[in-house]
């Protein structure tokens, strides 16, 4: 983390409205997590208590205090996906990547996360990788998709 970078992000958001969330989003994007030190800077610059920022950072699933992997695999456990076998799909992902949902691989390549309804239930079961949505994928097809992302493709 780089102090000047964080200050620059803050400076880019002069409008008071929705400032905190927008700034945290950018920091999260840049460092793939919210470093404690960055939150301290934001708190000091904006005059928002660290307590509040911690509350926001832990409330929204989009933020994390631990570094996330380079690629974020979000598996939907919403109602429709649940019915269509999200559990099996998630288990297969866990096996293939070798971590549990909520964890990040040791090499920092992948993070597996469970999310609620990605908003395209008709494609259930759904998962997304770095925002790219995959629908109707069977557990057996998981290795193939993973392979694409491992090879640096996918995007």
């Amino acid at each position: 983390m780089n102090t000047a970078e964080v200050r620059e992000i803050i400076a880019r958001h002069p409008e008071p409205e929705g400032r905190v969330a927008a700034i945290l989003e950018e920091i999260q994007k840049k460092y793939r997590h919210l470093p404690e030190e960055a939150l301290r800077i934001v708190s000091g610059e904006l005059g928002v208590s660290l307590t509040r920022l911690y509350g926001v950072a832990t409330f929204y699933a989009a933020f994390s205090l631990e570094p996330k992997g380079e690629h974020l695999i979000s598996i939907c456990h919403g109602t429709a996906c649940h019915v269509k076998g999200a559990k099996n799909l998630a288990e297969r992902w866990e096996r293939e990547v070798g971590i549990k949902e909520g964890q990040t691989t040791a090499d920092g390549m992948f993070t597996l996360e469970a999310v609620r309804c990605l908003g395209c239930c008709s494609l259930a079961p759904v998962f997304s990788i770095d925002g790219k949505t995959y629908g109707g994928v069977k557990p057996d097809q998981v290795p193939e998709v993973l392979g694409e992302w491992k090879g640096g493709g996918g995007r």
Partner: protein
Amino acid sequence: MEITLNGKSVPVQGEATVLEVARREGIWIPTLCHHPGLPPYGACRLCIVEVKAGGRQGLTASCTLPPAEGLVVETDSPRVRERRKVLVQLLLAVVRDAPEIRELARRLGVEKAPFKPPEEKRECILCGLCVRVCETAGNSAIGFAFRGSQRRVSPPFGKAAADCIGCRACAKVCPTGAVRFEQAGDRLTGEPWQADLQVARCTSCGRPLAARLLLDFARKKVVCSDFEGLCPACRRRKVARSVKRRG
């Protein structure tokens, strides 16, 4: 403006909520997350009343309900009573031994606690009083974190409360006794915030007075240089000495 409370027409005298009007009228409405000195929060729902007319009908929290002309409210209807009982039963499942909750249960005629307690022991019912009082009177050392079943009150990063000044306001307002401060020698510790503070002593008699940070904080907020560093007893002595007998 007038509203109708339990069939009686009562004036609104600048109160911001129906709860306040009811209290002024001497009507008892149970509350857990309400404190007259703090912004309303509407978390515990114990203060529910039944709106019969003049607003959106049904059950609603009176601590966040602004009075409106022609509002007709029942504070103790069968529906209200039934719902309050369930709420207290749920609370009992979590914090069975808290005296304030027990007293509430007694007053509302709740005998059974049919709900199963959560697996891990809890003392906090997430009423948010400590959070709001820390924001208002203290130093925003604690706040809500996480969400859903994980929701809890915590200092930032779950570490020891670095911004705690030891005012103990949180322990004072907590309805369940989940917050505890203890003073031993020159240390004041506060749980579950992991607060650990230096205690200042009376500059005259040497008795432990209060957390040093609290005194510093108070000095910045109130202008009252006379009593600096003196315990209440020494303060009284000082004032008494300064008063001269006439004749």
